[in-house]
């Protein structure tokens, strides 16, 4: 296969993957964020403590989390058809992708939000803030760097899932790798998809890390510009001047 033959196939596959991952990320963030926060709030000692709701959501999340994606996909076929009218193609793949990723992201949100200092919640309560105000001005903004890291992890997991979705006719890079690379022994095509995936994932991780870190930096928890951090070990004086500036 020549490059001119491969190129349209690959660009269509890239676009399909992007489409599937993009929409399913959006849906899983929109649904997973409140779900994760709800898991924290309804937990014992939480602001909306409700053991029953907590247990039910927790169980659903656990089951969905532990389900192998390829089985989830097959199991959800009726549901997918009900929503999109088909079980084949990239639109159809979005349904199981999102449903697989929602509990995944919800758990990550739960972990991030739990990390938020309870004292901050108490402070807002002492000002007369409602639970909604606590969520909006404490839990989400304070957990934001960690939530962004969680979203990055989710996107990368979704890219992995989307390759599996490719095997049941959703298209995308996974589909290309299987159809060309595996079934037709087009090793070149295979390696190109692998390379594209590797580059995309590295880039996403890089952007995600950068976003999370720059938020951290703004709030100063990591302290100082990233660029200068290695210098501290070498020039302790640099730290001293910074300390003077702070005081």
């Amino acid at each position: 296969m020549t490059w001119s033959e491969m190129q349209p196939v690959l660009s269509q596959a890239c676009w399909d993957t992007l489409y599937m991952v993009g929409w399913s990320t959006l849906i899983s963030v929109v649904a997973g964020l409140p779900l994760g926060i709800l898991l924290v709030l309804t937990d014992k000692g939480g602001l909306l403590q409700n053991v029953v709701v907590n247990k039910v959501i927790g169980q659903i999340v656990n089951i969905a989390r532990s389900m192998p994606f390829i089985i989830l996909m097959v199991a959800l076929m009726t549901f997918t058809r009900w929503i999109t009218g088909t079980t084949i193609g990239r639109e159809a793949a979005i349904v199981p992708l999102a449903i697989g990723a929602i509990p995944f992201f919800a758990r990550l949100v739960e972990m991030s939000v739990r990390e938020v200092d309870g004292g901050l919640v108490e402070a807002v309560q002492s000002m007369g803030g409602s639970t909604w105000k606590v969520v909006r001005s404490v839990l989400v903004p304070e957990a934001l760097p960690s939530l962004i890291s969680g979203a990055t992890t989710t996107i990368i997991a979704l890219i992995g899932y989307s390759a599996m979705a490719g095997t049941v006719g959703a298209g995308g890079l996974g589909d290309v790798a299987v159809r060309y690379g595996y079934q037709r022994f087009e090793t070149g095509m295979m390696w190109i998809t692998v390379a594209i995936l590797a580059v995309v994932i590295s880039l996403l991780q890089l952007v995600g890390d950068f976003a999370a870190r720059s938020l951290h930096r703004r709030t100063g928890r990591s302290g100082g510009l990233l660029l200068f951090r290695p210098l501290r070990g070498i020039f302790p004086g640099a730290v001293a001047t910074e300390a003077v500036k702070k005081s």
Partner: protein
Amino acid sequence: MHPCPGTPTPLHSTVTETHVITTSGLTKVYRSRGREVTALDGVDLHVREGEVYGVIGQSGAGKSSLIRCVNLLERPTSGTVTVAGQDLTALAGRGPRAGKELRRARSRIGMVFQHFNLLSSRTVQDNIELPLEILGKAGRARSLKALELLDLVGLADKAKAYPAQLSGGQKQRVGIARALAGDPKVLLSDEATSALDPETTRSILQLLRDLNRQLGLTVLLITHEMDVVKSICDSAALMEKGRIVESGTVSELLATPGSELAAALFPVSGERTGPDRTVLDVTFHGEAATQPVVSQLSRTYNIDISILGAAIDTVGGLQIGRMRIELPGRYEDNVVPIGFLREQGLQIDVVGREGEEPLLVKEGAK
């Protein structure tokens, strides 16, 4: 004239006789895994308007539970809390969630925390605006108020900084500014200086003192540091095992024989230098402290007095404290000079007299 023990002394102009915080029969029991821990055991607290009231005790004594019950961050198991004439326990309702009425009441009570609890995602100014957002104030009014408060706590140039860029003392100043944003009548301070170094502690206490005077703000603080009580409190209470064991204005406490708080606030020590000597603990409170009684005594009776130890302070504008002095001769020889001192309005405790192995010796010897 010296104030009689038991009579509340107006310590400075902002203190009135109105009780602004009252708890009665406050009890808090924590249940975990079938075990019950009583954190508060029938606490009756009366904080007068305009005073700085310190609750001191060791960790685990229930101080934290107490201050959290005052704005109902913790629900008391039983008892009532009244702040500024409003029964908060009645507002709270039964459920664990704070209703609108309780939240409104809370917004009129400021609170500062040991670990500042500033939002790291917001600038200093936005942190101070947070309570104003909760009160539903408009953007412009919020920022005006925030800047005004920053000026008040001496951080006018830090409005756009993030909390992580501030020192501990600066963070606590922001915390105080934030607590004042809703124009509260009452400020609760939960170990506000415990995470700070001694010098910063002094400046924060000074700030609280100034605010108390300037704004007539009532401050209820809890602490485990005696110095905090000593430097700014008009009244104090000692907590042990969920109960208040002593309470009163500082001079009332000092006038109470055997008061542990007074002994801790004004520790005196010093051993008798030989037999045939009388050791006295002289407690000054009120006007007597301003008179040179020791030299008067010396001159009047022509005796040599040695001072073994003393702890005299100016608390709330009055000199109060204790001094341990030694007179030559046994107790029987010194009945007249002791009578003279008592006549001056001083409280005299004879140390180490047979029959009463006094608490003061133990306390002083620590």
